[in-house]
């Protein structure tokens, strides 16, 4: 339970708010490269502000506040140049830093443009997505986490959820929900609706732990029948501060991304890399992107798959969950720890320090710890995850199932010495 003030401070992401200032220290994926195949610019919303994201003819990306500082028309409907973007309304032109460099109708007053600087950020691509940074300089390095840069087949499930990003993040430090929401509740649905729910999510939690590390919090669990030597405890997997969670198993590696669009909307992505040992695949130019369903035709949550169950739990709390009405228990200590981490990070920003997870050193790849043998389910886990999770909506689902099954057979053959 929190006070009203503390809840507001933790959930408001707009400019000038403590959390908004913290969140502006990080890079965010905000679009896919294919979004620019037909049009060179699009409007994106991030941290409570509208932006124009654009791609020049030679492939450089830029991001600028959407409203032209002249008369507030949308720059998304502007003319994209090699060195910036020009407003379609009166032709004011801005460079990548947002500096106004041309005002065609103001030629007799050449100094006017010097005082006009639009809000702007940095943009670059990685893993088929366009990433942006809209915070203060110096601009940090774009963290090249393993799933974005390693070789493999990628598919990405996306949806915009009508809730604050923090209640999704709190789910990432709540291990117990797995055995209930994805275990008992899934089994209940299976029994009442006539399908077989995946069993590996039903195991009882014996012990959980949370370790802070440089990129967030590592979550560990011991499940019934398992020990501390199992991957779920010995390796665990991390909440990636401040808006991600890295999960995986059996060479399906995933980053769950929660982009704070504004206080009450979150762009949710399941960015998944399939690279099974023993498997073979053709090089993939771009990730396959698909929508996953949240609501059915009657407006009810679709809860017969894992991420649909999660979305129900996140969204049904309301746009911003009222933490003055909650009752945390012993098993919610990870949630309290995460809130403390956010508050501590806000304080670091106020003190002029880098918060956790801001990367300043150049690097090729950042490997994150993540269990391989998830829930002790072995190779059965891949079928259960692909068929029982958001990947059931993936247009390449059958190919993915085959990729993993063939790879498992190849590994088995190699192990047997055949």
């Amino acid at each position, binding site marked *: 339970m*929190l*006070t*009203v003030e503390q809840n507001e401070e933790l959930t408001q992401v707009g400019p000038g708010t403590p959390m908004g200032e913290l969140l502006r220290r990080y890079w965010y994926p905000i679009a896919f490269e294919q979004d620019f195949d037909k049009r060179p610019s699009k409007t994106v919303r991030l941290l409570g502000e509208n932006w124009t994201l654009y791609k020049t003819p030679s492939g450089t990306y830029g991001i600028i506040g959407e409203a032209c500082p002249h008369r507030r028309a949308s720059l998304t409907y502007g003319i994209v140049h090699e060195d910036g973007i020009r407003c379609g309304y009166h032709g004011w032109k801005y460079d990548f830093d947002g500096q106004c460099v041309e005002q065609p109708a103001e030629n007799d007053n050449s100094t006017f443009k010097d005082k006009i600087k639009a809000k702007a950020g940095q943009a670059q691509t990685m893993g088929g997505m366009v990433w942006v940074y809209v915070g203060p300089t110096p601009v940090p390095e774009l963290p090249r986490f393993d799933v974005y840069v390693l070789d493999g087949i990628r598919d990405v499930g996306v949806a915009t959820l009508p809730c604050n990003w923090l209640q999704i993040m709190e789910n990432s430090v709540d291990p117990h929900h797995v055995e209930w929401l994805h275990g008992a509740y899934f089994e209940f649905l299976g029994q009442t609706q006539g399908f077989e729910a995946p069993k590996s999510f039903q195991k009882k939690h014996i012990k959980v732990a949370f370790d802070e590390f440089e990129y967030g919090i590592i979550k560990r669990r011991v499940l019934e029948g398992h020990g501390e030597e199992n991957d779920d405890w010995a390796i665990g997997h991390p909440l990636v501060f401040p808006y991600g969670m890295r999960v995986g198993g059996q060479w399906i590696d995933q980053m769950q991304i929660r982009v704070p669009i504004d206080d009450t909307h979150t762009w949710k992505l399941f960015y998944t890399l399939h690279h099974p040992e023993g498997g073979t695949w053709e090089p993939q130019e771009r990730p396959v992107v698909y929508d996953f369903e949240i609501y059915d035709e009657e407006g009810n949550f679709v809860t017969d798959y894992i991420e649909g169950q999660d979305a129900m739990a996140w969204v049904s709390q309301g746009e911003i969950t009222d933490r*003055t*009405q909650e009752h*945390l*228990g012993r098993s919610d200590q990870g949630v309290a720890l995460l809130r*403390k981490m956010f508050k*501590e990070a806000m304080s670091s920003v106020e003190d002029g320090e880098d918060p956790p997870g801001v990367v300043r050193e150049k690097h090729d790849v950042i490997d994150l710890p993540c269990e391989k043998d998830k829930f002790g389910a072995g190779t059965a886990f891949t079928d259960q995850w692909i068929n029982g999770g958001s990947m059931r909506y993936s247009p390449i689902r059958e190919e993915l199932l085959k990729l993993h099954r063939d790879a498992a057979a190849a590994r088995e053959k190699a192990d047997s010495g055949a």
Partner: protein
Amino acid sequence: MPDLPPDPYLLPPPGDWFASDAAHHLLDKPKFCPSCAASLDRGLISEWWSGHDRIFLTWCASCRWTGNVVLFDKAIIEEPEH
């Protein structure tokens, strides 16, 4: 119930189901850091429950101390199997 702290503290509407818990949270949460004695107004206090115990995970913005402050009715010691 004692008087609540003055503004700027806000409470959920009185009709809310757990308004009483929210009021008691406001009344009973630690006011000063157990380590450095600074005001916790800029800190963060998350309350959770364990049986009858009320536990305040407390973070101090002044000295960055983190720990649990426990309100309990009686001290109970769980004996491990022996």
